[in-house]
């Protein structure tokens, strides 16, 4: 008999309000309807009423976890319109914070996944180690989230000699612990039973629906803005794009955990580059933004963040369009859920690392 199970808007399985209407036959999911918009704050409209400088802080608040991604995408678009190149040092500074953020976001996801599977000890362990990264972010930027690190034309603060030892130690600890977590995910029987073979997204669908980020890369669809549209200093460091083929929940977990190791690699090289670069300007002044338009793209932990900025020569943007990664990925969720049991729905939903407040803006 067909039965409808409502998940959300308020539900234990979801951290944020969004509604999923799951049609089931017995335990099996046969259809999924989604309703978004419970978090709609009208940020695109609000941005038109604020100056470019104020908008940096506004777009930073679109997301509480990836609060580096939106300002970088936005400032890159505005810098394109103004025709300025930011200093090399600022590119590296932005990249270090961006990769630290990727590490803490992926660890956060791994912890939540462990909790959903039912292993709270692993959740506690992972979140304890995430604190090392958050501490470094706090020491460097002054805040655990919402760093206010960017300005149009560069960065607002510098990373100096005194930050390097702590940063390198934290990276080393996190790297060692991540190897342990990869081992736990691959060997623990409960985790394997819950993740392997569930929530499968075939490559063809990943490509057809234009998914982004780890969700796409775990299905063998190689999209990574860091490689495809090089920004910051990503083309000056050596790292590997993690692309795996299976497309199930376990693969998405693997991609994220392996990316932590790649991020650690990038940060080490960026620190080395900072040591070699001459100390100097970390921002160039931008007096005005001429009429024009441009596109800012940035690889956030969850996938591509996209900003389209149109300016009309005043201090206020004419139009700001924001596309967060979950907006692209969530349309693939029904394909992941169909045919699985109802008990797999929470972990499959979490496997795209959804951020609904980004999606709704």
């Amino acid at each position, binding site marked *: 008999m067909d039965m409808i199970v409502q998940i959300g808007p308020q539900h234990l399985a979801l951290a944020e309000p969004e509604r999923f209407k799951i049609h089931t036959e017995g335990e099996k999911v046969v259809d999924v309807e989604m309703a*978004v*918009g419970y978090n*709609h704050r*009208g940020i*695109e*409209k609000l941005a*038109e009423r604020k100056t470019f400088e104020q908008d940096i802080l506004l777009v930073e608040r679109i997301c509480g976890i990836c609060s580096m991604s939106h300002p970088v995408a936005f400032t890159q678009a505005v810098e*394109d319109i103004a*025709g300025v190149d930011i200093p090399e040092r600022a590119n590296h500074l932005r990249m270090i914070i961006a990769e630290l953020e990727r590490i803490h976001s992926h660890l956060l996801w791994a912890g939540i996944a462990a909790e959903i599977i039912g292993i709270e000890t692993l959740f506690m362990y992972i979140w304890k180690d995430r604190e090392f990264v958050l501490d470094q972010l706090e020491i460097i930027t002054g805040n655990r989230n919402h760093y206010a690190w960017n300005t149009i034309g560069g960065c607002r603060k510098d990373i100096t000699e005194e930050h390097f030892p702590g940063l390198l130690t934290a990276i080393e600890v996190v790297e060692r612990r991540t190897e342990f977590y990869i081992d736990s995910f691959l060997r623990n029987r409960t985790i394997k039973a819950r993740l392997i073979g569930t929530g499968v997204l075939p490559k063809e669908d990943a490509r*057809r*629906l*234009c998914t982004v980020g780890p969700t796409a890369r775990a299905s063998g669809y190689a*999209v990574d803005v860091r490689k*495809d*549209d090089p*920004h910051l200093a990503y083309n000056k460091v050596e790292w590997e794009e993690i692309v795996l083929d299976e497309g199930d929940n376990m693969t998405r977990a693997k991609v994220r955990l392996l990316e932590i190791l790649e991020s650690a690699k990038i940060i080490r090289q960026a620190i080395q580059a900072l040591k070699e670069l001459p100390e100097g300007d970390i921002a160039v002044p931008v007096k005005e933004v001429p009429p*024009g*338009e*441009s*596109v800012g*793209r940035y690889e956030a932990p969850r996938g*591509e963040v*996209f900003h*389209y900025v*149109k300016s009309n020569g005043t201090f206020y943007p*004419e*139009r700001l*369009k924001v*596309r967060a990664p979950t*907006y*692209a990925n969530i*349309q693939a969720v029904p394909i992941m859920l169909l045919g699985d049991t109802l008990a797999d729905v929470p972990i499959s939903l979490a496997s795209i690392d959804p951020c609904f407040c980004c999606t*709704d803006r």
Partner: protein
Amino acid sequence: MPEEFIQKLKNLLGKNLLEYSVGRRNRIFVKVKNGYHREVVGLFLEMEAHLSVISSVDLGEELELVYHFEIKPLQVCLKTSASKAKPTIETISDIYPSAAWYEREAMEMMGIDIANHPDPRHLFLPDDYTEFPLRRY
């Protein structure tokens, strides 16, 4: 590379390619006559383009849709516009299924009438909301 790409579009569209420009970092902006965007999107599908999002812009007299594609290594913004009195633009969701949600957003926020859309309900706004909040003029 951008020049070759624009030449390709010129060959396909002729005078229906209204304007084009090349920005920094491989950004390309192309405007085509309303109705001809589907041909271009079909070509992009053959080139394995990645659809990032669709933006809607209020130009005053006209309403504009901007389709943001990535054709490695180019970032292409394909534009088409319709008059505000009759803002009808045909859907591309049969070519790119993920466009369906972006078009729903353009419909509710900017009041663009997307023809042949498979599911023209509101996406973010409540169902009984009749204003178009992102219109400027």
